[in-house]
């Protein structure tokens, strides 16, 4: 386990683990909140990838000092904040109109 902190594949596999569990949660959960938590997990896994590449492959991908990976992760965090606000608003609205946030029972738009 020596040098784990600078071992790039370890970070990639960990973010892949987060992404896979997020995918399971997003697909399998019945509650809209559970789906939302799965999406958050997937976003976190992707954002961690950007930072890991920025830190451990510096000078290989981009040869300047603009911290591109950090900026992308920052935008991911910002968009996740917006997403949380909109998702909670939608959940509030759905809960207000039909007293449940079960995604399987909100199927009026099904063809």
């Amino acid at each position, binding site marked *: 386990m020596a040098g784990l902190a600078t071992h790039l594949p370890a970070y990639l596999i960990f973010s892949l683990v987060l992404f896979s*569990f997020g995918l399971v949660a997003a697909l399998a959960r019945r509650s809209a909140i559970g789906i939302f938590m799965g999406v958050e997990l997937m976003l976190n896994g992707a954002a961690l990838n950007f930072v890991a590449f920025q830190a451990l*492959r510096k000078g290989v991908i981009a040869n300047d000092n*603009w911290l591109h990976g950090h900026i992308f992760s920052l935008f991911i965090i910002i968009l996740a904040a917006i997403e949380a606000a909109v998702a909670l608003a939608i959940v509030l609205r759905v809960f207000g109109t039909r007293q449940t946030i079960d995604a399987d029972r909100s199927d009026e738009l099904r063809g």
Partner: protein
Amino acid sequence: MTLADIFVAFCFLLGGAAAFFTAFHPNILYAAISLIGSLVAVAGLYGALGADFLAAAQLIIYVGGILIVILFAVMMSEDIYKRRFFEGAKKYIFPVLAAALVFGGLAKVTLDADWSVATKPDFEPTARAMGWALVGPYALVFQYVVVLLAGLIGAVIIARPATKMQKFTDDEGDN
């Protein structure tokens, strides 16, 4: 094994276990609470990778803000204290298969690739460089964060209590 390695291994274990519970715990409240573990672990890994500003932003925005919103929404979930593991177990088969497929494929690509040119993370403060980047090459993208305002206004409009007209149409739709 240095202290950084132990810290990173701890973050991997914490984040992986918490992500597992987030995906599989039948009780949505515990799933939301274990999401904290994943988010904190990612913040710790940001720190280990030398991204001090991002680690702080992750803690403040995700753990402090988004998670509060999620927990608030979970409190409205009707089946918080109803454990429905066995009736829901069948629903997990296909998602787990799909996730295993994605995991296997991407893990194979990751492990097969040549990562020999790895550099050490540097531990300089990053806030100044990120600030210059946001008004430099990323100035235009930064302007698009205006969607934050649009999104928040949209959220307020969506979450507003229903007016009489909307209530009427909603009642009609429930038949």
